[in-house]
């Protein structure tokens, strides 16, 4: 969309106004995320820029909030809980999800639509409803307030993402490759690990990352299904924001933004790689 050389003044004005409007919307999208980063290095307990910070003086900045984060037992416990819960939930969703996605991509699957609807449902149902249902049901069977309960709940929430990304990768998968492997005498298990898995790996990994971030960021379900012993990082942030908002939250938020940037980069790279691979294989 370039401005043609014969554009009238009105068109020129509109062209630049439109760009400015879009720029403002991009600013609205990104500014709230960027603004917390410098604030987290403030040497004061304020949530705004102090005059020292605006003057870029060294005493305006400090690692105070990061030190608080590293020394506070509450935050330490929350971090270790998050690190214990998210990977376990991811492993369950990825292993079961990948198998099921392969099953779903076969040409003859009875009740395909119904099965798909059930498997996708954790993404569709509002979190508060999932949380309420799980709270009722898990207290009946004694899983409420346990580590296992939270892991199972988070695994269920991550499954739709794994199913969607892996099925999408499998759409471009050339089935004659597995037939060729079988033809040459490879067992189905060997075929899976040596031929199919390497090709769908980008999809599996990005599905896994989605499942991981779902569990890692999740707060509603863990609030209900977990007990104080399973307090995760988002839960700690939630209580922190609701009760006494302390600047330590800004330090945690900054760390989480850095993690998201990392994850986003990995997913983008994988998507490009997968598109390249699919471009190579016919069909």
């Amino acid at each position, binding site marked *: 969309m370039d401005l043609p050389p014969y554009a009238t003044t009105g068109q020129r004005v509109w062209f630049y106004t439109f760009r400015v409007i879009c720029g403002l919307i991009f600013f609205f999208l990104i500014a709230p995320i960027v603004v917390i980063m410098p604030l987290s290095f403030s040497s004061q307990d304020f949530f*705004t820029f102090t005059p020292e910070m605006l003057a870029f003086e060294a005493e305006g900045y400090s690692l105070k909030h990061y030190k608080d984060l590293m020394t506070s037992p509450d935050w330490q416990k929350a971090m270790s809980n998050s690190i214990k819960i998210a990977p376990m939930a991811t492993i369950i969703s990825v292993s079961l999800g990948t198998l099921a996605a392969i099953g779903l991509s076969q040409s003859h699957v009875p009740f395909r639509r119904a099965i798909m609807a059930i498997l996708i449902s954790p993404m569709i149902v509002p979190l508060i409803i999932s949380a309420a249902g799980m709270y009722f049901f898990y207290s009946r069977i004694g899983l409420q307030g346990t580590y296992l309960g939270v892991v199972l709940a988070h695994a269920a929430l991550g499954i739709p993402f794994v199913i969607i990304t892996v099925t999408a990768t499998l759409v471009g998968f050339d089935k004659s490759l597995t037939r060729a492997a079988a033809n040459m005498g490879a067992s189905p298990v060997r075929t899976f690990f040596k031929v199919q898995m390497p090709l769908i790996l980008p999809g599996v990994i990005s599905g896994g990352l989605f499942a991981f971030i779902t569990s890692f960021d999740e707060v509603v379900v863990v609030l209900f299904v977990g007990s104080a012993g399973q307090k995760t990082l988002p839960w700690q942030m939630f209580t922190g924001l609701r009760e006494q908002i302390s600047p330590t939250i*800004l330090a945690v938020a900054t760390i*989480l933004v850095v993690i998201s940037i990392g994850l986003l980069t990995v997913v983008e790279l994988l998507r490009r790689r997968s598109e390249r691979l699919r471009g190579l294989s016919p069909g």
Partner: protein
Amino acid sequence: MSDATQTGPVLAADGRPLKRSLQRALRAQKMRALALIAPLLIFVLLTFVAPIADMLFRSVENSIVSDTLPRTVLALKDWDAKSGELPDESVFAAMAEDLKIAEAEKKHITLAIRLNYQTSGVSSLFRKTGRQVKKWDVPNDGPYMEKLLDVDDDWGSHELWRVIQTYSANYTPGYFLNAADMELGPDGVQQVDDSQKIYVMMFKRTMFLSIVITVSCIALGYPVAFLLASLPLRTSNMLMILVLLPFWTSLLVRTSSWKVLLQQQGVINDILVWIGLVDDANRLVMINNQFGTIVAMTHILLPFMILPLYSVMKTIPPSYVRASKSLGATNWTTFWRVYFPQSVPGIGAGSILVFILAIGYYITPELVGGTDGIFISNRIAFHISRSGNWGLGAALGSILLIVVLMLYWIYDKIVGIDNVSLG
């Protein structure tokens, strides 16, 4: 059929009819596919579908009254609530016996809490009576009508007995009626007092705020998606990162930054004061009200509008626009008559997605919504974690679930759930 002389069915290499062989192979293939899916399906059914079913069940389940007061429920069957008279001695005797047993198991408190949702004062009445009934020699030291009335005059309340009778069934529509600001009164379904009406208003507000958020998302998302779709791929990929980064950033991070930005001593107010638009003494209140909820949720849900819009706009051939212009249409006519109609499916998909996500939101309204910016989800959470009225929470949840599923059905018709793309 290469062999014309052969009659009968075509045979496979092993001598079986080909048709049956093929069917068997197909069946084996189906079984294999199902076997791969089965572990996950069972997992999701147990960890997710069963809880949802449990919630739906709890929204109508009401066995606590007949479980705790079996004799009373039986004795009350013949009592005519409309007669205006109190039940007879046999009902009071049954109540005394039931209460004594329930008191020993400490079940009368749970029941009292349950009945307290329908008529207040039951809770203290049951606690008080429970302490007395303990000392009685039921069923030998009657008459119990007098004894119970001695303990508390409330036992002479006609309303109390009517409530027990009304809620003695194992299943009740009561919670759903409560969720619609109605109750089971003496003459059937009736509206609750105006002072207690909150849920219809909450549902309306949830709908209203979700619509406002969806409309703001369209207003902000459309220009951005249009720009991204019309720029060369390399540039638009770069700009896309600005959309995807918020999408990937933790919900709580984004909510906390809005909390920081919008508060009275926050960055936005500071800037406004510095520019001189706002007086330092009366800084704007932008948080803990509807404004805070709308701004923060629009920001959070905007990527869900931009991504479907972008993918639809990408498929609009630029030659249509050029054709329209070369036929003499102005820029505006081209956009409005040629480009916009083709982007409508994207608006539809994005709007439904944003709307569905918005009406079920809990965290952000809870943190920045104050009292007038909260959603129905916050009431559900309140009933489950604080008030303990699980049945009402479950009924509100069931209504919300039905609304969301209906919207998804529409979404599925328009876009197809399989076509959801992630980033």
